[in-house]
């Protein structure tokens, strides 16, 4: 295992422009000592997966607040698998109804953070659950 900082990607899939949460979390991750890649808005699942592989990240945090998470989040997991990169941990956050959470988890999204989540709790979760990827 390489001895390096955790590399996390914060990504905004879809057309949704609500980036307040994503940008705050990107900052909190940076302040926690992670290396952060923020994709900016309006990414497709395909562009996110390509960038994640190229940037060699350990985790992708997907943010969606406009209701398209049921398509976009599993699509990212599917494309990671197709590209042999399914050891990248995928988590999600945003306006996600309670009923959707088990369905997303069943499709490989490891954890979902809903409104009201604390920054330190999310940072703590990442430290406890995401490891640097092995070559």
């Amino acid at each position: 295992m390489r001895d390096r900082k955790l590399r996390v990607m914060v990504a905004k899939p879809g057309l949704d422009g609500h980036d307040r949460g994503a940008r705050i979390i990107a900052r909190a991750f940076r302040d926690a000592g992670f290396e952060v890649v923020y994709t900016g808005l309006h990414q497709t699942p395909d562009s996110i997966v390509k960038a994640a592989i190229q940037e060699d990240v350990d985790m992708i945090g997907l943010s969606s607040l406009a209701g398209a998470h049921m398509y976009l989040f599993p699509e990212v997991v599917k494309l990671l698998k197709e590209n042999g990169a399914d050891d990248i941990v995928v988590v999600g956050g945003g306006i996600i109804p309670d009923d959707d959470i088990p369905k997303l988890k069943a499709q490989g999204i490891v954890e979902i953070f809903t409104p009201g989540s604390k920054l330190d709790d999310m940072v703590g979760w990442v430290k406890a659950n995401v490891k640097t990827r092995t070559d």
Partner: protein
Amino acid sequence: MSLTYSRKIMDDIRKEREKWERTLKEVFSITPQRLERFSTVSDQEIKPLYTPEDLQNHDFQRDMGFPGEYPFTRGVQPSMYRGRLWTMRMFAGLGTAKDTNQRFHVLVNAGQTGLSTAFDMPTLMGYDTESPRSKGECGKCGVAIDTIVDMEDLFDGLPVDGITTSMTINPPAPVIWGMYIAMAEKRGIDRRKIGGTIQNDMLKEFIAQKTFMCPPIPSLRLITDTVEFGTHEVPRWNTISISGYHIREAGSTAVQELAFTLADGIAYSQAAIERGLKVDDFAPRFSFFFNSHLDFFEEIAKFRAARRLWAKIMKERFKAEDPRSWWLRFHTQTAGCSLTAQQPYNNIVRTALQALAAVLGGTQSLHTNSLDEVLGLPTEEAATIALRTQQIIAEESGVANTIDPLGGAFFVEALSDRMEEEALAIIRKIDEMGGMLSAIEKNYPQREIADAAYRYQRQIDESIKTVVGVNKYATEERLPVEILEIDEALEKIQIEKTLRIKMERDNGKTGECLERLGEACVSGKNVMNPIIDAVKAYATLQEVCDVFRGAFGEYKDPGIY
């Protein structure tokens, strides 16, 4: 000059205040203050008491005056709510045009007095439902509009010549407005008779809301085309709704919301003047849109300061002479970002307080958020409670009986003065950067907002700021709230509808119209008439927007955090 008092009286007040402060100190030495520092939701420090001493530079006639008179601190109309109440305008949009049309009818029957349309993400970004980029998004956070047929279905059975319609649309605003005008004309209604608002405020998109299509300079050109067209051809239409709402939702402070919004207004005015329009011909059709957040007095002071500051900008900077150019007329929406998913019924109370602040601040129209908007699109029941909240404020509480009831309160006047002063300092800074377009290129407002948002989130996490039900008084159990779900099958139905229209239309004619639009983009001719021709020939929203993308290029998010 002071508010009303003589030097002798002021001396007495100072002595009494000093005496009171000594007493206060004794009281706090026994029982300390609740907090070390008291501040607004935007972190402005607030004193324990305000007195006439805080208004020593305040002049009644100059700074406050009378409603309907310059500088309009107390309201733009002389009669305010004694004449007509504010417009109760609930923002609605879900699923297909037919679904939203049904919701419009429900709201109008419940006593709503204006329409307001929410579009889905593909429509907001200028894509048709069939675009691969639209997958999973159809009808999710508003209504899907691909063609003029959708626009006709949306307003079916609604009196578009008798009711005003607001449309929250930005990059494709000229197209959606063109569809609305074309729809009205197909019904035999003159474009000079229709009234309403398109948001059409791209600068705040780059700053905060982030639905964008073309880069800033061509975006401003398209907006100026709509201003020019509206001034000459659709005189009852508000061509831009200069919006602070999204700036605030993105995490700005109240003063930043005020300053950035008015700075955007300055940029639009400048562009229209450079086009050759006279300020008094277009400025009366500019309207504004603000957030009403949680801090009651800060919001009221913001609205009052906004009116006064804009009046001065119009009169002194742009030399407007028509009093209607000096008016800052505004719509308000309560703060979506203040709602909590936890204990969602508390959101009714938050919204009621925010709505009350908007009314005490003299808003011209108001949307009250539904308790479930943090969870999904509002259900019919939740939207009705939100509308009833406005009706209770208007017709039961008595607050609309007198104009600007808080005018003259030492705290409110002092806070209004301070917010005007601080906003003006930010506007000057933007002027020094060369105006809002170059400030945006330097990412100045974007960074300022990101900093404020992060600071606020940290204050919540550290319980410096209280959010009831989240970082205080939290409970484990979750109240069941019904969530409105949008049927995934709608996407297929909408795609088929648009495909059918494309098959049935005269493709040659549509193509010619789009070509003429492309030529107008290049030559600098106003795009509005070519757009109206194209949508009448059933060109889709994306086909028209693709012409813009081709001519002007696309803007990419710089990804600042």
